């Protein structure tokens, strides 16, 4: 208790509150603008955090930016169908459908509340079960991660689109995109005309976020062109409606919230996995829960609050989850926490076992600032919920060129200081825009491509490592119960979805 009070006294000052507020707003802006990521935001405020006299204040600033960026990404996903960053990729479908129904306000408000629930809920796990969960994640070796990636991909193929074969094929296409670039084991470049092109940015493969921006942003512009000549009636969107989803509805969704929270926290805690798997797993779990609810809940994918809630709870639960191995083992759960660990060390905090045994007041102050960060995130984003949908009042004819430029600049900015790399990213975005346009027009889902690209690298790297550890045999897979569970889940999903598809198509 003494430690807690000491921690509390470290953060109860004006400057902490001010910088947390500042960080939240900055994070939301970063999250909402495609191309500016949570990782980048955290990296950018490190110098500021370092200059703050109080370590706890600096950490509060960093955590606020991190949480805000994850939450802010839902704004463009819901309003424009473009996820601000990969965190919001599963929010797009239902968010867009709700906007089309004129429920933009409720979707945005719901997303914020879901994010707060996810952030605060996962923090409870972080505070009470951190060492336990950290130990659990150690059980995830190469073989286990391979099967986890498999489950992730199968789920995405199952939840997006009406035909699981098309989903799986798009996932495979994503894998193929992921295979360009370096061989993940030896680091040798694996591209066509390697001798000629090895000095070009292609040697590092396609940038994941540029691909995302291309598939969702640029392709949107291409797809909208035929709609431009219609009269511009977006009035339905201007009717914001209530921003607070009815409390009773949230109460009914308690199962979805709990499952998303658990999935987000656990997946977030496994190093090298990240939010993009978690959000789809959460959505899939939510679909199952809705099926079982006998019509009390609406099914994700039909433009309902459930479909926004599940991924938005999960992606903010990932923030708490990713902090678990970061703080207790010093191992980052995702790229943003990697930068965060660096920032903590600069601020004089060495993550790892020693942190919990030697510096409990600081740990408490960190938990308190994380709470503040999550609350501010919610408050500031809710404050703007009535304002953001105004963007929909802008005519599509004006908005689409701006979306195109924003996609270009966003993918360019990801490259850092190199102009060539930046332009290569813009090229990637344009190319993926064409791919996305062609696929969308023909009824193929886009999300599996992005996930394939994200998971393809991880899948190949871990699969080959697992094979090598087993000296060329599948022994590492066979001997692991976790692998068996994941494998059986994958098979079950493929079979059940195919049967369901067949039945629905047969109708």
């Amino acid at each position, binding site marked *: 208790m003494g430690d807690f009070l000491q921690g509390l006294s470290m953060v109860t000052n004006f400057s902490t509150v001010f910088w947390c507020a500042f960080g939240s707003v900055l994070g939301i802006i970063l999250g909402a*603008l495609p191309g*500016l990521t949570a990782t980048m935001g955290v990296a*950018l405020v490190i110098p500021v955090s370092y200059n703050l006299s109080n370590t706890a204040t600096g950490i509060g600033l960093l955590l606020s930016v991190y949480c805000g960026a994850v939450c802010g990404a839902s704004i463009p996903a819901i309003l424009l169908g473009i996820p601000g960053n990969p965190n919001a990729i599963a929010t797009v479908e239902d968010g867009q459908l709700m906007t089309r129904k004129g429920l933009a306000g409720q979707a945005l408000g719901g997303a914020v509340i879901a994010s707060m629930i996810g952030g605060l809920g996962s923090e409870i796990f972080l505070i009470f079960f951190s060492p336990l969960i950290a130990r659990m994640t150690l059980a995830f070796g190469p073989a286990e991660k391979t099967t986890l990636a498999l489950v992730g991909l199968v789920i995405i193929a199952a939840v997006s689109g009406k035909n699981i*074969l098309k989903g*799986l*094929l798009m996932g*495979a*296409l994503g*894998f*193929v995109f992921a*295979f360009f670039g370096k*061989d993940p*084991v*030896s680091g040798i*470049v*694996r591209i*066509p005309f*390697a001798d000629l092109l090895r000095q070009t940015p292609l040697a590092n493969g396609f940038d994941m976020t540029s691909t995302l921006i291309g598939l969702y942003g*640029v392709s949107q*512009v*291409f797809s909208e*062109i*035929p709609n*431009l*000549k219609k009269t511009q009636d977006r009035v339905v969107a201007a009717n914001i409606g209530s921003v607070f989803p009815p409390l009773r509805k949230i109460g009914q969704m308690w199962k979805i919230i709990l499952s998303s929270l658990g999935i987000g926290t656990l997946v977030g805690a496994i190093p090298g996995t990240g939010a993009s798997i978690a959000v789809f797993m959460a959505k899939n779990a939510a679909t199952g829960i809705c099926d079982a609810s006998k019509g009390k809940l609406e099914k994700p994918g039909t433009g309902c609050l459930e479909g926004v809630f599940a991924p938005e709870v999960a992606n903010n639960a990932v923030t708490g989850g990713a902090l678990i191995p970061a703080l207790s083992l010093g191992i980052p759960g995702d790229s943003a926490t990697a930068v965060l660990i660096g920032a903590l060390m600069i601020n004089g905090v060495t993550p790892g076992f020693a942190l919990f045994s030697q510096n409990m007041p600081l740990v408490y102050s960190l938990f308190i600032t994380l709470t503040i960060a999550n609350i501010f995130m919610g408050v500031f984003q809710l404050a703007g919920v009535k304002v953001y949908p105004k963007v929909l009042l802008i*005519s599509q*004819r*004006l908005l*689409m*060129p*701006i979306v*195109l*430029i*924003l996609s270009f*600049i966003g993918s*360019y*900015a990801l490259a*850092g*200081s*190199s*102009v*060539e790399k*930046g*332009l290569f990213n813009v*090229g990637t975005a*344009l190319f993926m*825009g*064409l791919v996305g346009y062609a696929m969308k027009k*023909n009824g*193929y889902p886009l999300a599996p491509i992005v996930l394939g690209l994200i998971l393809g690298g991880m*899948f*190949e790297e871990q*699969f*080959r490592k697992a*094979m*090598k550890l*087993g*000296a*060329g*045999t599948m022994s590492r897979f066979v001997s692991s119960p976790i692998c068996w569970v994941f494998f059986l889940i994958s098979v079950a999903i493929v079979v059940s979805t195919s049967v369901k598809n067949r039945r629905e198509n047969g109708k």
Partner: protein
Amino acid sequence: MKKLKVKMLPLVMTVLSALYFIYVFASEETAMNADSVGGDPGGKFLPYVMAVFMFFGFLYITLKERPDGKKTDAGDRNLFLITLCEGVLYIAFSKVAGFLILTVILLYSLIYLYTTIGEKRSAKQACAGGAVTLSVTVAVYFLFRYVSKLLMRLGRQGILPMFKSSTAAAVVALVIVAGFTVLLSLTVCRKLKAKGFNRVADAGIVTFATVLFLYIVFKQFFLVALAPGFINY
């Protein structure tokens, strides 16, 4: 053109999968060679699996699905191609011409083309508007850049210490651009609209505000090295 009996996309993808298989087959093995125990299936294993899966998957769809015979409108196709070409040119010339000029041209022309769908377009009017937009944007650019640099210099010299960090100067730049946007839309744009040049005025002011806003946010706040080109100050 003769009516095709199969859908184009799955057919193309089937062919591409086959080509990908050949490419993987022809490329070199990229696994580690210093490996004494072995066990790594190598860098070609999964690409093979994916190529085979995609080939048969898309082949199945090609054989099963039939085209629905929808046709695209010629005007839409032109607009699509123009957008695509402008995108390609934007990438090709970014390094030479730089962010400012190219973004103004791309944004202005697209907004003009998109907003005038189904209306009569006037090339002369559009070009004049574009030239004015570009010059005004460049002029304001020089102005706020000059102010930012001046403030930063004063910050470094300790005369105005609050501007030691370039972020403070960026805030001032943002205020300048916001001011000009309001000013221009109330004066020049209003006059142009009164004379019936609605489309040009809209495209111009939106382009001006968007480009400079993006410049300040990405370059001055977040220090992204935007392609400099020949207008760089």
